[in-house]
C-alpha cells in the first residue's frame, strides 16, 4: 500500500500561481515529494543525497507571459519527511543547500534543522535569512542537496523526501 501511495507521489509536482500587483508580479514555485536516496552503509556524521532539478523555471513562466523573467527568488518553506516512516531514527540534523555547475554561482545553504524534533515523520526546517538564490532561478538546472547528520553509522539505505516552496517575483 505504501509503495502505491509513493508511486502516486513520486512525480514531482511543480505548481506556479501568479498574481498581479504593483511593479513585479509574484508567483509561487512548489516542489512536492522530491526524493533523496541515501545509499547505505551510511557513515556517522554528515551524509549527502542530491536531487537534480532540471526543470527550467523560465519554461513555466510562459504560463504567465511569453517574455516573463524571474527577478527574485526566496525559499519560504522547507519540510523534510522520513519516507521510511522511522521518525528520523538515527538522524540528528538536516541541512538543505543549492549548488550549480555554473562557475559563477556559489553553493548556498538555504535551510537547517539541528537538532531534529523527536518522534515525527515530518520536520519543518528553519530558513536561511540571508541566502541569495535569485541567480539559481536563471539556470536550466540546479542540484538540491540534503545533508543528514547521523549520530552513528547505519548499515541501511535511507529515503527522505522534501516539500519546498519558493516565492518568486517576475516581470
Amino acid at each position, binding site marked *: 500500500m505504501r509503495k502505491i501511495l509513493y508511486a502516486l507521489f513520486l512525480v514531482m509536482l511543480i505548481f506556479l500561481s501568479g498574481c498581479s500587483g504593483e511593479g513585479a508580479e509574484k508567483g509561487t514555485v512548489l516542489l512536492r515529494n522530491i526524493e533523496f536516496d541515501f545509499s547505505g552503509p551510511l557513515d556517522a556524521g554528515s551524509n549527502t543525497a542530491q536531487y537534480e532539478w532540471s526543470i527550467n523555471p523560465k519554461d513555466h513562466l510562459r504560463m504567465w507571459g511569453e517574455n516573463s523573467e524571474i527577478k527574485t527568488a526566496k525559499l519560504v518553506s522547507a519540510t523534510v519527511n522520513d519516507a521510511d516512516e522511522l521518525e528520523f531514527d538515527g538522524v540528528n540534523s538536516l*541541512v538543505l543547500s543549492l549548488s550549480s555547475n555554473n562557475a559563477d554561482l556559489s553553493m548556498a545553504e538555504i535551510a537547517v534543522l539541528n537538532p531534529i524534533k523527536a518522534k515525527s515523520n515530518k520536520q519543518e526546517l528553519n530558513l536561511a535569512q540571508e541566502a541569495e538564490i535569485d541567480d539559481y532561478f536563471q539556470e536550466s538546472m540546479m542540484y538540491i542537496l540534503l545533508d543528514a547528520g547521523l549520530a552513528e553509522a547505519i548499515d541501511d539505505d535511507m529515503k527522505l523526501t522534501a516539500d519546498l516552496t519558493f516565492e518568486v517575483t517576475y516581470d
Partner: protein
Amino acid sequence: MMKKATILSLFSILILGIYSFTFQTKDGGDRLIGVWEPSNGRARVKINKIGSKYFGKIVWLKEPKDPVSGKPKTDKNNPDESMRNVPLRGYRMLKDFIYKGDDVWEEGTIYDPLNGSTYNCTIKMTNKNTLDIRGYIGVSALGRTDVWKRLKIKKKKGRKRGRK
C-alpha cells in the same frame, strides 16, 4: 636500421601521448576525492564531487564539542545569524572548485569556522597524497598555503535503522 629505430620511437611517443590523453580525460580531477587532514591535525575534510564541482566537508573534529555548552560544535560564527546552528561536523568548508588541469583546482572558496570568514582558494596536488591549499583575499600572491595529507579511513560497521 636507424630509420626503423626512429619509427619505433615516434610510435612509442604517439602511444604514450594517447595513453596520457586518455588518462587525463578519464581521470579529470577526481583524484582529489578522498579524506584529507590539514597540517594542524584538528579536522578531517572529505572532498567529493557534486555535478562538475568539488566540495570538501568536515567529517571529523579533534574537539567535536563546544567547551562551554558541551554540545556538538556548530557554525557559531556564520555571518548569517539564522544559520549558526548548522553542525560544524558536516559543514562544507571547501566549495565550488573546478578542475583546471595540471593537478590544479581553482575558483573555489575556503571557509574558516574560527572567524566566519570565507577566502578565495586554489588547490594544487603536489603528489597523490599531498595538497597545497592556498587561501587568499584578492590576489593569490597575498595569501597563505597549508599542506594537507591524504588519509585512508576504514568504514565502521553500523546498526540497522529502527532497531536500536
